[in-house]
């Protein structure tokens, strides 16, 4: 009985890692769809999000059964509690990928618009950082690596600077001469906001990994 309990925990961890991989792939596809102006890829992102939602529900259900049947304590309890919250963040990141995919469809369904090269570069840089934070958060979870999880917050701080730089560029290039341009700029600022949110949610995942590994509640308080 005890063995099956620990097997169930391992199985649950594997489910979270699988869900994390799906989310990571969808973030990548969503970003690629907007960078390359590919509405087909965007539609795939929206469709694949259903799988992420299914994982979320399935993992929550498994957590409930484990809590009800085995009353885990200590590290095992922290794992279950952290997983319950991590999958919420993962699900949100999935939803944000869908939002990005919808931007792609809005911007590129009818005709292709050329993004300013400087703006494009900043978005690519933001995307790379955000994806790296997410992947490291997932790796920290799967490898139980608290040192890696501790680094995420620092990585996230550069996102805010990039976002500011992006707005500056847009103010400078924007001459408000056409409806199309205003639409593009609005959507790009939304995109930067979505990328920032993916970063934040990924950092939160890292904090939950830290709590699971150390049992220290301070990791999930905002002022630390």
């Amino acid at each position: 009985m005890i063995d099956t309990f620990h097997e169930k925990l391992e199985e649950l961890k594997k489910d979270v890692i699988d869900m994390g991989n799906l989310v990571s792939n969808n973030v990548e596809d969503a970003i690629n769809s907007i960078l390359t102006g590919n509405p087909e890829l965007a539609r795939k992102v929206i469709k694949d999000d259903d799988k992420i939602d299914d994982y979320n529900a399935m993992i929550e259900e498994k957590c409930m059964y484990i809590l009800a049947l085995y009353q885990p304590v200590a590290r095992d309890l922290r794992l279950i509690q952290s997983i319950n919250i991590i999958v919420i963040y993962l699900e949100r990141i999935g939803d944000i990928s869908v939002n990005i995919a919808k931007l792609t469809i809005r911007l590129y369904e009818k005709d292709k618009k050329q993004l300013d090269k400087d703006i494009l570069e900043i978005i690519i840089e933001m995307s790379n950082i955000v994806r790296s934070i997410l992947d490291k958060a997932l790796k920290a979870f799967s490898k139980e690596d608290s040192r890696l999880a501790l680094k995420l917050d620092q990585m996230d701080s550069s996102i805010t600077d990039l976002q500011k730089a992006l707005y500056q560029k847009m103010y400078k290039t924007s001459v408000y001469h056409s409806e199309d341009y205003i639409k593009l700029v609005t959507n790009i600022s939304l995109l930067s906001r979505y990328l920032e949110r993916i970063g934040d949610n990924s950092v939160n995942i890292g904090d939950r990994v830290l709590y699971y590994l150390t049992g220290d509640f301070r990791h999930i308080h905002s002022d630390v």
Partner: protein
Amino acid sequence: MQNSNYLYNSNILEVKNLNVWYRAFQALKEISLSIPRHHVIACIGPSGCGKSTFLRCFNRMNDLIPGTRISGQVLLDGQDIYNSGVDPTEIRTHIGMVFQKPNPFPKSIFDNVAFGLRINGFKGNIKEAVESSLRRAALWDEVKDRLNKSALTLSGGQQQRLCIARAIAIQPAVILMDEPCSALDPVATLKIEDLIAILKEEYTIVIVTHNIQQAARVSDYTAFFTMADDRSGILVEFGKTNEIFSNPKDKRTEDYITGRFG
């Protein structure tokens, strides 16, 4: 409280460097811990780790086992209960005990509770004292109409609450409970657990249990015992129950409560 003449201290019991031997075998090694007043302390650990031996040190029950030798101190309100002048019977009026299997006397329900009062020369109103004890043990309503029936006609859970009523009748400061629910069904167990929560307002309770979920539910502090390499019992970790069960400091505690050992 009977102990009001003692110097008030937030720790009712203090154990200092306690060692217990059963002939050549050392059952407990170098145990030190303080038990705060009006709290519930749970002792957990694998079979044979000495937690029942530890419990029996508090009312000198180990004295009854031939070949037992004890060193160190057990202070009840600052007084060492192992001092040469101390009468173990006197100690047991301050420290009551409830056992694994309910063990009422083959007497009436009333007499079971009145027994301790009578032999201790109680001068007050015995009827009132019995009713008060039965009420505090959450048994009164179930037995008030049949106080003269034999205690053996009660269910197991009722018998165990009767034993608690019997223990608290003589107003002890501390109640020791050795696996008090292991012979009871879940409903009776829950009643005892609710009762423990109420009793700690007036008493300090030290409970030994194999059921770690029960320890987590009922206690304020948890002591985790295990066996050293020579099989003698050692105290690994003592701390607040919510910390022990969410973030134990010692890996041996973690392994035990998460079922990875024993």
